[in-house]
């Protein structure tokens, strides 16, 4: 009852939050055939600034952080990522009419992490006055990479069984490929600079003040993309729609549970638990697709990209974020 009320309240206030408003605004623009288009160059610059900002902030905080406190959440993040993929193997892949490669690629994408969803969660948590460890967003790669690697390795094993291809040798390359993606590169370089240099001023004068505004533009883009890719999604089996709705919530709840363990064991803050839940709920929109395209060439991008951008991301942002915040209020007290 409490949860329902708290969730309803959080959800309604979220509807008024500009975060969600811009996401839905993007859908509205695409749905009404607006000619407004945010240029690709701007999109790529926004992703860079957001992730460099997250990285710098994280890096500056890790300097003072107790690294032991980081180790367990990182391990748990990796476990959540892998479990998310396995859930997909056990559910989506078994449904009728679903090709195994498509299911694996989709599970990999939903096990991986979305930078835009993460950034949205950070802003919403800040608006709600809910504190989290500045290094918590740095859990991103610890969940993202294992999920992608596992999905691609499983697909390789499957191809191996099916037609004698060798599916094992390229784990190192998949990891390197993920780390080289534009989003993770920016995050990791930011961490490094935050850790080793003194970027306080440039962070406070540039990366931090632009964060909220650039995020609003990014969410508008994600909204437009979501609507546009719906057509793609409609072309594939309806099961993908179901999966795309259920997976973010399931993965997020699982992430929340593991976060709770970290809370008890090493004192991860309630905000940190929400961050873990949100990255679990999120699905990769920037680095995942090209890595999967290269790693599971047989999979149909209409299936996994359609499911992820047109339903997965909106659900993770619009339902996931308020749900986990409400849950944290319920579990850890206000």
């Amino acid at each position, binding site marked *: 009852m409490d949860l329902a009320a708290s969730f309803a309240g959080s959800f309604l206030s979220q509807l008024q939050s500009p975060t969600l408003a811009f996401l839905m605004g993007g859908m509205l623009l695409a749905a009404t055939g607006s000619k407004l288009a945010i240029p690709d160059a701007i*999109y790529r610059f926004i992703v860079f600034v957001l992730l460099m900002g997250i990285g710098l902030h994280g890096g500056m905080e890790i300097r003072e952080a107790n690294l032991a406190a980081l180790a367990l959440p990182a391990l748990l993040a990796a476990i959540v990522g892998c479990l998310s993929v396995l859930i997909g193997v056990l559910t989506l892949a078994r449904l009728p009419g679903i090709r195994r490669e498509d299911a694996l690629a989709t599970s990999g994408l939903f096990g991986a992490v979305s930078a835009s969803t993460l950034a949205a969660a950070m802003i919403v948590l800040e608006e709600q006055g809910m504190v989290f460890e500045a290094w918590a967003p740095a859990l991103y790669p610890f969940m993202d990479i294992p999920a992608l690697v596992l999905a691609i390795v499983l697909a390789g094993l499957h191809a191996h069984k099916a037609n004698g291809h060798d599916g094992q040798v390229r784990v190192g390359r998949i990891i390197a490929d993920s780390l080289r993606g534009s989003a993770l590169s920016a995050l990791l370089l930011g961490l490094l600079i935050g850790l080793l240099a003194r970027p306080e001023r440039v962070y406070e004068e540039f990366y931090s003040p632009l964060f909220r505004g650039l995020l609003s533009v990014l969410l508008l883009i994600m909204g437009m993309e979501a609507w546009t890719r719906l057509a793609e999604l409609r072309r594939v089996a309806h099961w993908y729609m179901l999966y795309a709705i259920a997976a973010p919530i399931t993965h997020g709840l699982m992430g929340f549970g593991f976060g709770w363990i970290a809370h008890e064991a090493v004192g991860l803050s309630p905000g940190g638990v929400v961050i873990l839940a949100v990255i679990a709920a999120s699905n990769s929109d920037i680095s995942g*697709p090209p890595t999967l395209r290269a790693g599971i060439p047989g999979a149909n*991008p209409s299936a996994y990209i359609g499911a992820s951008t047109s339903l997965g991301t909106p659900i993770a942002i619009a339902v996931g974020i308020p749900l986990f915040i409400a849950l944290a209020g319920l579990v850890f007290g206000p």
Partner: protein
Amino acid sequence: MFHTATKITIIAERLLQDGIISIVEAAGAKGYTIVDGSGKGEHFVRPAERAAVVSAFSIIRIEVIVNDAEQARDIARDIAGRFFKQYSGIVYLSEIEVLRPERF
């Protein structure tokens, strides 16, 4: 002064660029030109202009000029064989006339 040569045009996902270029260079072609594009074929709609959230899937158009038509055919067959069973893409040849054939 003008000599017949063959132009290979490859339209493919950006993802394949490095792989295609290495086949082209290994086959001894002396140069290539790439142009960004968008398109629609069997697989996926690739939008231009607006933010390409999934830009590895965007389309590029590669032109390679070689003097020898047989060499061109080999390159085209190689690329199609290696990539275009699994990934999106097409390849075609056209006959052209060039100056300074020693450059190609």
